[in-house]
């Protein structure tokens, strides 16, 4: 049974929104008309209010409790709050969109809310799951799905409501390359079949370039900056968009120039290392590797192959199941294996930057956050002050020193988590997906910083699926090919 929906129309006239408790308008003076069936890519600098616009179109911004609006924003000539079933909104975080414990129930949720009769619900559930390519039994637990699968599940749930307007708010930002492709293909299939109107926000333009027929750019100071065909808008605005962090094809971020290496001593080796989160091994084949000073090792592989586990094991945070991790070159009197080091000893030897920066935050202000490491080492106050000032300047955090770390933007949090690790100057830095979901500006800064560290003699281990990152920085690549094999490669320098 196919899914029918006629595309929805969007009309906006001088529309604006202000969140409650803030003095500035998130959006103002928006004039738009989107015809049924159009496919639109929405771009703009961070803070331009793109997400707010999408939430408004979905009718989930809230009422008087949450803020005030002026102007007019209509979907199919009606207020968005009144036509919620007509509009589907897909958000960025796969985990925060799973509502029920079983696949079938989750997809049926939207239909239940709309009052669809029971038989019809289950028919739609089947059709929706097929349309997004999720061939799973209806009682499959939703907690056992990958990121890409969860996003497709959410998409199926939206699809079952048979919406005329599909809104996607950075749907692939938290996914690896495989997941991105899955979601893109699913959206393409859905839009082709239903003829629904599509509005996408994404800062990687290349993902949606072929699918959309219109690009709208919002200005950070209010109003619409540009509106037209992808070719025209990207040609006109491409450079300024790239400058604010959008990944525009044709305007890639700059790659750093590397200096020649001086010291080639070994810092880290593993011997027949078998890793695992618990006592059971998650990766069967023993891993043997060697890392030298000033070199960068990239760990790659598909989801679930144990990349993060390996990074945490190398960092002395998880014990090896069998085999050893040996950091004799870093030991400085502390014993050979990082896992045996005390927490404070790790600070000056190996620094680990987690995939989710929020897991690392322990203080109430950015300044205190930067001071945690040096304080734990017992450094004198003036030394701590110097280090904080230096890092804040280097990583553009000086205006944020008294802010609460949780209130920072995504890019700022990433910079802060890297800065806290660098505060204690470890000779080996391990990063777990450092460029995940980052805009191009932050990417560029991060890569430049890491290149500087490498030139200074710091070694780097990075778990990543970002091929550009690997090409810019990595000297070696360790590919975890599924849970059974590992392959070493020397990365060709393409600079």
């Amino acid at each position, binding site marked *: 049974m196919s899914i029918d929906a006629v595309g929805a129309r969007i009309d906006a006239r001088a529309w604006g929104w202000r969140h409650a408790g803030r003095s500035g308008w998130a959006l103002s003076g928006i004039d738009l008309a989107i015809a049924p069936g159009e496919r639109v890519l929405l771009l703009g600098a961070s803070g331009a209010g793109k997400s707010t616009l999408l939430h408004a179109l979905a009718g989930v911004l809230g009422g008087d409790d949450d803020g005030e609006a002026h102007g007019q924003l209509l979907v199919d000539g009606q207020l968005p709050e009144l036509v919620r079933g007509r509009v589907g909104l897909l958000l960025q975080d796969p985990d925060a969109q799973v509502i029920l414990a079983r696949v079938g129930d989750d997809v049926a949720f939207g239909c239940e809310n709309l009052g669809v009769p029971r038989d019809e619900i289950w028919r739609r*559930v089947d059709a929706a799951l097929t349309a997004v390519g999720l061939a799973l039994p209806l009682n499959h637990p939703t907690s056992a799905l990958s990121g890409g699968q969860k996003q497709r599940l959410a998409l199926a749930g939206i699809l079952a409501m048979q919406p005329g307007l599909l809104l996607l708010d950075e749907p692939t930002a938290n996914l690896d390359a495989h997941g991105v492709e899955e979601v893109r293909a699913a959206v393409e299939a859905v839009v082709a079949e239903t003829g629904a109107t599509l509005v996408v926000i994404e800062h990687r333009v290349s993902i949606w370039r072929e699918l959309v027929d219109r690009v709208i750019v919002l200005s950070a100071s209010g109003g619409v900056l540009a509106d037209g065909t992808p070719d025209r808008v990207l040609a006109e605005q491409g450079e300024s968009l790239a400058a604010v962090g959008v990944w525009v094809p044709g305007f890639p971020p700059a790659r750093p120039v590397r200096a020649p290496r001086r010291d080639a001593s070994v810092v880290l080796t593993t011997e027949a290392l078998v890793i695992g989160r618990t006592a059971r091994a998650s990766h069967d084949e023993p891993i043997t590797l060697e890392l030298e000073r000033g070199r960068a090792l990239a760990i790659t592989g598909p989801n679930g192959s144990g990349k993060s586990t390996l990074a945490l094991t190398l960092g002395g945070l998880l014990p090896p199941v069998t085999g050893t991790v040996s950091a004799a070159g870093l030991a400085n009197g502390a014993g050979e294996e990082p896992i045996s080091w005390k927490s404070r000893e790790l600070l000056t030897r190996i620094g680990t930057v987690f995939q989710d920066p929020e897991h690392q935050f322990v203080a109430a202000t950015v300044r205190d956050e930067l001071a945690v490491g040096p304080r734990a080492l017992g450094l004198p106050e003036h030394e701590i002050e110097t280090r904080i000032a230096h890092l804040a300047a280097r990583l553009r955090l000086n205006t944020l020193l008294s802010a609460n770390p949780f209130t920072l933007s995504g890019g700022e949090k990433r910079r802060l988590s890297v800065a806290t690790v660098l505060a204690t100057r470890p000779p080996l830095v391990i990063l777990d997906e450092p460029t995940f979901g980052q805009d191009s500006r932050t990417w560029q800064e991060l890569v430049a910083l890491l290149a500087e560290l490498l030139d200074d003699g710091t070694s780097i281990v990075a778990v990543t699926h970002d091929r550009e990152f690997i090409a810019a920085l990595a000297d070696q690549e360790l590919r975890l090919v599924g849970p059974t094999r590992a392959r070493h490669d020397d990365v060709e320098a393409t600079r």
Partner: protein
Amino acid sequence: MSVLTPVKGSQAVYRLNPVSKLAASAIISVTLVLSIDWVSAGVALALQIVLFFWAGLGLRPFFRRTMPIWIAAVLGGCTILLYGRVSGETYFQFLFIQISDGSIELAIATTLRMLAIALPAVVLFVTIDPTDLADGLAQIVRLPARFVLGALAGLRLIGLFAEDWRSLELARRARGIADRGRLRRFWGQAFALLVLSIRRGAKLATAMEARGFGAPNQRAWARESRLRSADGVLVALAIAISTTAVTVSVLTGNWNFIAAQS
């Protein structure tokens, strides 16, 4: 063990409607709590033990799940033994402690009572699937759907708590503060977990609203929650156990209404 993955099986107890399990547990709890005497509690407990074998939970998981109850029941009994109302002959006295005939009897009654009330509750609750419970509460008991489903969705986030907690632990080791101050670190981690969870909850709420949740129209139900004859049997059994226990207790003159304890 996770509250989201209930014990599964094919025995009858797994097919019962969660609402009837709640009702059965409520009936037993309310009647037994009205009196503190060892006869009513003992009779109820004996009858329940027979039923537990019928429920087929299995001896080892049963004891694993109910161990805290056994411990607490014994401790509760000890409290009463030492500090309970004095009557009859006194056997031991020290400061506030006074062990007497009366307190011994009350202690035994307290222990048996705790067991008789708590054990069936655990057996029944352990087999409840949260989604089915939500369906039952909303469709049969007619609690407001917004609250029941909102609570269910929030409950799901438990699963992510464990992963986040592990990451938070490892991160503290990496930040150099894991050597000392375990208690302080625990509360810091708990706070961070709360922050992450509230944020995720807010996003989840937006996602649910985007799927039409909370709208004023009448909601449909994809899974029907129905009461079957087996549910009636369960409730009848609960009533039977309760009335038998109370009757035996009253007839043997042991009934000890708690409100009369002034």
